[in-house]
């Protein structure tokens, strides 16, 4: 059953390409497929939560020889939240994209392939298959980021493609080294065999994978490609990339560091230092920008620091905090980009200097933006507060004062840069690119597309639900972290009950 979230979108993509002359059919296929994946992901989450993990051996080949698909709780959570995002962003895209991009440039099939690649990255239990899943996801993302092929997109897309190809090449090299050292690419078997290697060799392999996935996740000092390339894509594409693609990197980072290279007891100093630097540099970059999409792109980096912070603590509560943070971040970040995209579509520019008075022209956008921005900064009672509280509490319990201080400072700076967007775009005289619209009492209302507005409202609503339902969600994150910290259930689910990993 867990092969379906990968297979269904791929088949639908082929179908969509065949039916590319019937626009309604294409739209219907995309929407139905994405909704179907949400339903599948929900079922998988419930089953994975009840049974710790569900496993499927592709082609019936037994575990270390064939390709294993496995959905443990962490993978199932990520699968569900990412499939919800693809539905919401798809609806938004139906409202935003022009006919040229949506149909002539084949947005729909590519979007479905992207969705399949993301599902595959979460579900795979095989290191080389993870590389293949990454490539499926990335080739779709290369097409989407250059959709329309304008000059700016080609320039930014080139950086994006070259950096990701370089990381993929390193990934192949890393797989080669790991295979040479252990003779397997099955992750559960790797967990056992890597523990038998000499310490120095294991550490080197671990850092090689840290660099590979660090590029995809955008951690310090490997993030520089991100804020330049993301803003170039069409708004819904940027929103989806911002919410999901870097988080796939974070997911694999957490998966490989917990399953394959657990630090022998205690926190990992290196990862904590990387986390602190990522948070601080990201938010400082955001403060220096004056374009909505670029400010938000730098914030992605800063927020990834928090997730890595939870991973670096390497305790049950730390990793549970990171899992909860990822879920919260995906929802909030995507909705901020969607609001930004609506402002840009309605005013013709995303540069703060050209904007003003959005709060008067479209009060509902102000409300949506504020809810998401407060949540991102971590103000109570929004979802970001719960996520940050969990991380900071665990950091204090472990006496990691330095990183806690950095994360609190970064929260404050996050709030500051959000007020910069608020002051620049929402306050002031109503104007758009052509200049001040009018100075009279009744400012022009913005034309907002109902599909775009509806999708964004649903997403902001979801972020409120995440903070209201914090208790059961955090309990789920804790259960997910349990299987990440204690690797035995994962290994047993794949290889059978008699396999034991060295501590």
């Amino acid at each position, binding site marked *: 059953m867990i092969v379906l979230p990968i297979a269904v979108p791929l088949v639908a993509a082929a179908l969509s390409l065949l039916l590319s002359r019937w626009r309604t059919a294409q739209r219907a296929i995309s929407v139905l497929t994405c909704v179907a994946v949400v339903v599948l992901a929900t079922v998988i989450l419930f089953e994975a939560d009840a049974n710790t993990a569900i496993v499927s051996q592709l082609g019936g080949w037994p575990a*270390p*020889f064939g390709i294993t698909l496995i959905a443990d709780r962490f993978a199932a959570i990520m699968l569900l939240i990412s499939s919800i995002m693809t539905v919401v962003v798809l609806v938004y895209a139906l409202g935003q994209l022009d006919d040229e991009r949506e149909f002539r440039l084949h947005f729909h099939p590519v979007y479905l392939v992207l969705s399949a690649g993301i599902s595959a990255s979460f579900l795979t239990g095989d290191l*080389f298959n993870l*590389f*293949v899943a990454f*490539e499926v996801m990335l*080739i779709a993302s*290369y*097409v989407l980021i*250059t959709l329309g*092929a304008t*000059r*700016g997109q*080609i*320039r930014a*897309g*080139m*950086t994006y*493609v*070259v950096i990701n*190809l*370089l990381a*993929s*090449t*390193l990934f*192949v*090299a890393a*797989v*080669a*080294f790991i*295979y*040479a050292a252990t*003779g*397997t*690419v099955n992750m559960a078997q790797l967990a056992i065999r890597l523990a038998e290697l000499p310490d120095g060799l294991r550490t080197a392999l671990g850092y090689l994978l840290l660099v590979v996935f660090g590029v995809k996740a955008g951690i310090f000092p490997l993030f520089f490609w991100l*804020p*330049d390339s993301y803003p170039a894509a069409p708004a819904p594409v940027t929103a989806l990339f911002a919410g999901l693609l870097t988080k796939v990197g974070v997911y694999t980072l957490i998966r490989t560091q917990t399953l394959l290279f657990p630090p022998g007891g205690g926190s990992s100093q290196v990862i904590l230092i990387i986390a602190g630097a990522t948070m601080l540099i990201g938010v400082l970059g955001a403060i220096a920008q004056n374009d909505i999409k670029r400010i938000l792109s730098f914030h992605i980096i800063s927020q990834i620091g928090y997730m890595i912070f939870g991973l670096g603590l390497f305790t049950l509560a730390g990793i549970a905090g990171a899992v909860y943070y990822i879920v919260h971040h995906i929802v909030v970040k995507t909705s901020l980009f969607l609001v930004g995209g609506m402002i840009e579509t309605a005013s013709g520019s995303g540069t703060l200097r050209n904007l003003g008075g959005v709060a008067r022209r479209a009060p509902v956008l102000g409300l949506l933006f504020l809810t998401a921005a407060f949540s991102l900064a971590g103000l109570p009672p929004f979802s970001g507060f719960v996520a940050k509280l969990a991380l900071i509490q665990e950091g204090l319990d472990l006496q990691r004062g330095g990183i806690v201080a950095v994360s609190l400072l970064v929260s404050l700076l996050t709030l500051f840069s959000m007020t910069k967007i608020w002051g620049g775009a929402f306050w002031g005289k109503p104007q758009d690119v052509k200049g001040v619209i009018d100075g009279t009492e009744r400012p022009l209302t913005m034309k907002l597309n109902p599909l775009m507005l509806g999708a964004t409202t649903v997403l902001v609503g979801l972020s409120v639900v995440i903070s209201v339902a914090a208790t059961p969600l955090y309990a789920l994150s804790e259960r997910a972290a349990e299987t990440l910290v204690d690797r035995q259930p994962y290994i047993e689910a794949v290889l059978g009950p008699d396999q034991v990993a060295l501590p």
Partner: protein
Amino acid sequence: MTLALAAVVAVLFAVGTYLLLQRTLTRVVLGLAIMGHGANLLLQLAGGRAGQPPVVEEGGGTAIVGSAGGAGFVDPLPQALALTAIVISFGMTAYLLAMAYRSWVMHRSDEVEDDVEDRRIARKATTADAAGDGR
């Protein structure tokens, strides 16, 4: 033999890195392709020593995946992995070439353009210089 292959991998990675650091797009594309070859060759090396083809005949021995050339057979898995990686890097190179061509069509230059941020800072620096000269 293995040592010679290892040296070839090192050379391929070095050449790839050098080309990747150039400003010309075609060289960047070539650099990535050559580095990809290096990585694929590394996968081959990971399979261990050369040996018989991993085809099990009637009454013959068994080829064991991951045994690194045990029982005289070549480990077949790295070859399968390398094939997959070659196909993927072929597709990626084609896409990169298409992008490089598009870049050429649009502004008749084969060079990577400056980052938006770099340009902004460069502009600030020149205006600051101009203001300094005026004083």
